């Protein structure tokens, strides 16, 4: 478990067109948006939230050149030192023959490495749990969580969100990090929602 308990004002929107100006206004008013949870990737939301560009591709490049180096060193060691074979009289150090494997290991390393890095950055792993601010964030609601400090007046924030067009507003004290185990009993699952 990491992160600790924090207080959030959570507003749920049912329209992208309302969400975007709301994000802009909330940021302009100086409130700190913890995150916005959406049922599908929303184009341009990362820019609206002011999230910095991901470094995942840099990691991908490093994994890729690791793959290239691994392939070239290993194959050249095998074919020139460890077990040299005479293949049609061609030279032992036969770079052309190694290019396809080198290419494949480059792709393999960068692909697997980037998937694992992505999972790490998103706290995605088997048995790892995170707090859900609203179960319908996976269905049809755009859920914005605003982080409160000691000085934040949450009634004021709720009012602000009301004016920004949020359909549902509440205050939650939640764990920000991940934990291993079960969801706490208070966590209402979607199938227990009325009308499901």
């Amino acid at each position: 478990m990491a992160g600790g308990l924090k207080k959030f004002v959570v507003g749920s929107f049912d329209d992208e067109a309302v969400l975007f100006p709301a994000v802009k206004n909330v940021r302009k008013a100086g409130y700190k948006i913890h995150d916005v949870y959406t049922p599908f990737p929303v184009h341009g939301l990362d820019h609206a939230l002011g999230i910095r560009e991901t470094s995942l591709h840099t990691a991908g490049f490093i994994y890729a050149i690791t793959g290239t180096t691994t392939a070239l060193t290993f194959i050249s060691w095998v074919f020139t030192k460890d077990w040299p074979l005479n293949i049609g009289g061609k030279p032992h150090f036969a770079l052309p023959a190694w290019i396809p494997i080198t290419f494949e290991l480059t792709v393999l390393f960068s692909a697997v490495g980037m998937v694992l890095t992505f999972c790490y950055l998103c706290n995605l792993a088997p048995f790892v749990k995170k707090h859900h601010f609203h179960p319908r964030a996976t269905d049809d609601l755009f859920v914005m969580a605003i982080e409160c400090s000691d000085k934040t007046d949450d009634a004021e924030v709720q009012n602000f969100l009301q004016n920004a067009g949020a359909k549902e507003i509440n205050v939650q004290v939640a764990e920000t990090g991940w934990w291993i185990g079960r969801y706490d009993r208070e966590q209402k699952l979607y199938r227990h929602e009325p009308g499901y």
Partner: protein
Amino acid sequence: MNNQFVLPGSYKKWTWILIIVGLLTIIGGAIAYHPFEHAGHGVNTDATRFWAVLLQNSVYWLLLVNASMFFICVTTMAMGGWQVALRRVPEAISSVVPILGIITLVILLAIVLGHRTDIYHWLDADAVAHDKVLKGKSAFLSPTFYITWSVISIGLWSLLGRKIRKLSLDTDKNGTMDYEAGKKWIWKNTVWCSLYTVFFGLTVASTVPWLWLMSIDAHWYSTMYSWYTFASTFVSGMSLVAIFIIWLRGRGQLEYVTDEHLHDIGKFMFAFSIFWTYLWFSQYMLIWYSNQPEETRYFVDRIGTQTQSGPYHGIFFFNLVLNFLCPLLIFMKKSTKKNWTIVTLVGIMIIFGHWIDFFQMVMPGTLHEHANVETMFFGFGVAALFIGVIMWGVGRYFSNHRLTQINHPFLKESMIHHT
């Protein structure tokens, strides 16, 4: 909205400077190299040099401008809306195809009808009669087929391209289209573009590079060759499109073209540089892996053998640095594909790199070890003529027509394009 674009005086000045430099080079070559004398291996190589350089330049620049019409056609057939805002730029470049086509045709006819066996070995009827391999290919590699197919290819590229450009220009006159008219126009445009694409596949992606370039090494053949040539010219064609877009954007034109469009063009330059390298390698790899010593001749002429490096060793690998390593490393990041200066510089580098690529495709089979620095400088002079003609044709199209096809039904999709 700016309707008419006035070409800057410096553009016109440079166009004529390049054309005059090119013409002077060709006249100088015609005087110094005695191009109409008989030449053979090691004999009178100056005549060979003259025709080899003309062949290299004309085929390269013709296929380069032809690639921009292919770009329009494939994006149209993929129902791509993003390219509409910049579509007039490749259109303008493709309007040079008939002019360069005629120049190329004159050069090709002069080579074939002038019986230049130093360029095309298969023109030598006596040698063909005693050569089993060439005899087998004689139906394809014969002057009759060569001339017929070259005329048909250049003619149809010009005519189909003209039709597609006319469809686009008609929308300027006819005004805004309603839903039904727009649907009809899109259908018509798609049909013509598909015809062009099919014909492009039959020519540039297969027979034309075999006839014009691969037949220099008449005994050798590679199934990768046409794709290799296509990739080479397509990536340089996209570079030319990018350079013209940046040039026009810098003059406040093409108001709907954003850095997002440039990013996509940059992706084409990046991706097709890698595609070219894939073919560059595969052409060698297939021969190497399947143990075909008789097909290694092509590479022996260029890079040489293990013990003796060939005359084109340096150029062959320099080619790989220019056309693969540099674009790969420079264009890997998103920000560089949106940077005007970097895209322009890499574009010029790619166009130059593939010019070098064509140099090493033509010269080893014709000039053998006699291609020297002088050949390359003569080539630069001839290239100036072709660049000048391209600039002249593109400038003419820009100053006569609207720079954005404002009545294209997909224009809005292109305006809001975001990657």
